[in-house]
């Protein structure tokens, strides 16, 4: 091998190594920079579903103003949270992460969701509200926990860090503190879960769920799940600005199931195009849909453009009514 050949081979190898190192650095820094990295430390390994929302980003987005025109009622969950704890969802919360050991669609399931909220809270006021409803102060792993346990309530609230609040059933809150202290395994030890989280965590809101068709633990109605090929994991992410850019990803157990799932979704899309193709609002959304399958993964991305939102809003484009005030 002469010198010229050797130089060429070293140069080619160098280019490869530099690009791999650059990608590796980007990947490593992204993991530590993920918006929900701190909150995820409180999620126990038993969680089957994790959902995150950059509440401030969502509330301040032009999309939110438009969306309010479509759905003028605030989410029922936020009213419930305010009634039980005095936390004002719209103004107090910056980021919200919800973790659950259930992903059932059935209405009779017990709600064991753990809420991890980061924001600007007034601990004295919130504790006062809970104590006025019969809450008891307790200590666990060096943190004050306000518990509200009676025949109708099983709720606990803890300020785990300044500006970081845990809320949920007592067992979930204690489990979160255990996971943070390293006394029990955290979700970070689940590589499969974290790989999906890393894939979707660049969105303003995202969710990752482990599906288990066999035990009936699915976020979709069992009747629908029975019609679909098996799915192991489901992830969704949405980036919100003046419109919504969404991506859904499903992980099938094998390539054949992924191909079947892609075919089923293609069928649904064809049906949707047939049904809604004449409506410009739906047509622009359907035109933006991109369906891809890569190995066992099936992804569907879509855009809801400001123009499509204008068409979907009964009163037309914004500006005809008062816009929601911006948050600081």
């Amino acid at each position, binding site marked *: 091998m002469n010198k010229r050949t050797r130089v060429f081979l070293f140069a080619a190898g160098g280019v490869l190594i530099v690009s791999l190192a650059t990608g*590796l650095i*980007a990947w490593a820094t*992204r993991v530590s920079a993920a918006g929900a990295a701190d909150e995820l430390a409180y999620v126990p390994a038993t969680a089957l579903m994790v959902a995150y929302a950059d509440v401030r980003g969502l509330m301040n987005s032009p999309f939110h103003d438009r969306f309010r025109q479509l759905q003028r009622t605030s989410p029922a969950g936020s009213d419930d949270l305010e009634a039980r704890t005095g936390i004002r969802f719209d103004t107090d919360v910056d980021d919200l992460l919800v973790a659950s050991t259930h992903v059932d669609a059935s209405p009779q399931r017990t709600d064991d969701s753990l809420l991890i909220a980061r924001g600007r809270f007034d601990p004295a006021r919130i504790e006062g509200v809970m104590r006025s409803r019969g809450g008891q102060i307790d200590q666990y792993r060096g943190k004050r926990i306000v518990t509200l346990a009676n025949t109708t309530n099983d709720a606990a609230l803890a300020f785990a860090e300044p500006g970081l609040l845990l809320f949920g059933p007592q067992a979930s809150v204690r489990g979160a503190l255990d996971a943070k202290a390293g006394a029990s395994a955290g979700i970070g030890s689940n590589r499969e879960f974290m790989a999906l989280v890393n894939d979707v965590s660049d969105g303003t809101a995202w969710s990752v769920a482990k599906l288990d068709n066999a035990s009936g633990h699915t976020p979709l109605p069992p009747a629908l799940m029975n019609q679909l090929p098996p799915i192991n994991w489901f992830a969704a992410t949405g980036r919100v600005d003046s419109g919504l850019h969404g991506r859904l990803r499903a992980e099938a157990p094998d390539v054949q199931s992924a191909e079947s799932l892609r075919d089923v979704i293609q069928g649904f899309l064809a049906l949707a195009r047939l049904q809604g193709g004449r409506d410009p609002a739906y047509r622009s959304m359907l035109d933006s849909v*991109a369906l891809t399958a890569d*190995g066992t993964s099936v992804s569907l991305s879509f*855009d809801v453009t400001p123009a499509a939102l204008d068409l979907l809003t009964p009163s037309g484009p914004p500006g005809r009514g008062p816009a929601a005030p911006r948050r600081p």
Partner: protein
Amino acid sequence: MTAPLVGSTRRIFDLALGQMLWARRASLLGLAAGAPILLALVTRLTLSGGTAVVQINGRHIDSEAVFSTAITLLYFRFIVPAVGVFYGTSLIADEVEEKTITYLFTRPIPRGAIVLGKYLAYLLCATCVVLPSVAVVFMVMVPFHEMAPLFGSFVRNLGVLGLGLGAYGAVFLWTGALFRRPLVGGLLFVFGWEQLAAILPGYMGRLTIAHYLQADTRSVATLLGMTIAALWLAVRTIERREYLLER
């Protein structure tokens, strides 16, 4: 008396690598590696300058999507099969065509070493040109803050491209050892049959190499199996076949 296979393979590898890298045919490799980089540079400058917006079905396509499309359309569908056909078929067929295979056969080395040495030289030469080209396109097309989600698929794609180059090279090395002028047949296979089979319903796609250019266990195992089988058949063919050289 013949020399051991490993030592002979290494000598043929050294000889073939230099010939391959600095021959006129290498300009094809240069083109294969350079054109996507140039395309990536132009696309990146255009997208970042905001002078144009790439759209498919009315949907805005960002640099990530352009990179994924470039990998699929340029590398998997065109460059890897083209490099495999042009180089793979020439490894033995050119020696026969130019009547220089006699010089190799008269050396005291196993005939299998000629096949293995030339194949390994091809593999190193092709991967050292194609994979860095993909790496440069990745770095040009994808901004640093958007690299993380694509990094896994980038690494998998590099692996699959390497395996693809190996499989195409081995299969066409075998056809080069079997037939006198295998290039036309090879081109018909990759740009005719493989493209047709990809759009035919049913299982026809499985009768192509392109079908297995995927990062899953079954496809990787199939590509490796295909490569080993084709190499074994090429070695067997060259050891048993008597090449009659026209005067």
